[in-house]
């Protein structure tokens, strides 16, 4: 069995796509449709990597990301942000949150802007899991 990778995305099409890419490359995919479900899956299955959408209902990707990076038990799990939001907008939103909350969260390891070619995604995963 390959390494466990969790896909958190509210769009079923994106989930199907990413799951297919993962299966094709001998990873074990896990799926969650929103932030809350994502956290449950992480706590339950401790995946090797999380592919995370930013804008989702019920606890957005932003909230889940910040949770992961501030939880000592989970902060070592690498996260790939996989989203339609431009990186610049995402970083700006994080800066605002940090100033407001007074806590610093590291920038995401890898930030992929949709659309993403399957190979691009695989390269990113390999790089993180090497």
């Amino acid at each position, binding site marked *: 069995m390959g390494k466990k990778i969790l896909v958190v995305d509210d*769009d079923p099409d994106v989930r*199907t796509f990413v799951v*297919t890419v993962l299966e094709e490359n001998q990873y074990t995919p896990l799926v969650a449709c929103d932030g809350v479900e994502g956290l449950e899956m992480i706590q339950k299955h401790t995946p090797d990597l999380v592919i995370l959408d930013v804008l989702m209902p019920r606890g957005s990707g932003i909230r889940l990301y910040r949770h992961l990076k501030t939880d000592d038990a989970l902060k070592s799990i690498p996260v790939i942000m996989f989203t339609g939001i431009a990186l610049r907008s995402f970083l700006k939103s994080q800066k605002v949150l940090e100033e407001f909350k007074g806590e610093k969260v590291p920038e995401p390891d890898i930030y992929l802007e949709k659309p993403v070619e399957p190979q691009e995604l695989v390269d990113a995963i390999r790089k993180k899991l090497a």
Partner: protein
Amino acid sequence: MSANKILIVDDEQAIVRLLSMSLKSDGYDTCTASSGEDALDVFEKQSPDIVVTDIKMPGMDGLELLKRIKDLDPDKEVIIVTGHGDIDSTITALQYGASDFINKPVRDEALAIALERAQTKIRIREQLASYTQDLEEKVAEATVEIRRKSNFQRLLIHSSHDAIVAFDQDWQIVVYNPEAARMFEKRARNVLNKMTIDDLYPPELATFFRAEARNGAHDRGEMPWKEMTLETRNKKLIPVRYATSVLHEKEEFMGIVNFFQDLTEIKRLEKELIQSERMAAIGQTVSGLAHYVKNILIGLKGGSYVVDVGFQNSNMEKIKSGWQTIQKNIERVANLTQDMLTYAKERHPEVKLCAPNEIVTEVKALVSDFAQANDIEITTRCDPEMGQMWLDPGTVHRALLNLVNNAIDACMEEDDLDRQFNVEIRTGKTEAGAAVFEIEDNGCGMDEETKLKLFTPMFSSKGGKGTGLGLLVTKKLVEEHHGTIDIDTRLGYGSLFTMTLPERPETGRDENDK
């Protein structure tokens, strides 16, 4: 003293001299003559104001002299000096226009009184003459002024951009300007003073005005501007705005005046304006659309990748799910295209008899699978009295579907996990008989700012998942149906959209006639 010159005529020289002296001492200017013939000579040469003449003289007597003088100048005053009881000659003198009589022998006081009276008469006549002249001048001036004003008014009516038609108390047309001739397509010479209101106006309009005039209940006799469509003789339809004044004189009906304004050009411009605003909105929407289209492309690409993988591995499940993704995105493109077309083009509702409650059932069936998959309950509460109504079922269907989908999206956006999400569709009727559709959800609701921007083109609160066209299209469809959409919303608690559509049977009949 104006009438100062006096001619004294008598065949007795002594009397002439005596009177002359007496009058001169009173300040008069005198001249004398001893016979009628002589007197006429002097009269013509000296033109006295007053003549005092004895009645009995040899040759031309006083009466003849009086007659001659009055023939020459009727304004001269002639005082007749007469003997006692000479009634016949007195009457003749009166007939000839004598101004006064004195008896013989002439007493100074009597003469003075007679002269004064004659002078007063002359003065009054002079004044009267001057007044008359004055009056004539004033009348002439006034006439010129009136003519000028009436010309001005005629010109005003003639060149007015409003069609002006006026009727007298017998409903005969008495004013009919060129614009009216253009609008009604009838020549003025065939209309003016020849036609009545019934010959010119459509029957319902004529009846209406006749009733208005009978009522006469209007305080100032004026009615507010109204709009209507006028059908001309050549079956041309002209949208017009018209005002009416009922004319009264001393409480009595005198007629009415109508002013018509041709709204064809204004209506055309209005239409053009709406169209160009809409095109501008489409332009603004492009950036929002680009984002949406990009998402569709991502879906299509992802889907085809999954299908490819399925083919390579002969995995039917993969092919199926990839194909579903592709189909879903094709559907999104189709919807988007339809929304854009609907929004860009002017469309008239296609009204027919339809059952609103049935449309609600259809819409519910369309969304229920998706709603169920997301734990959202869809309920309906339909008024059994709705029955069949004259509405555009297409408009009702699309607007409802859009609003219900929005309501489902709103439920999915809400973070409160303990909530049992519900979307309820209700139908009913207003007092006026319009159809009312209520779509209520207990989803995320909206803040004031979002609510205000709701109908702005390209505005979407759904990130890349919305085109920013949905509500815009819904609103347009509803407005073309002369209906309204009202929103009641509270952030975190849900929204209530109320769509009211009046019945449009007249449009329905029109459509059926075609």
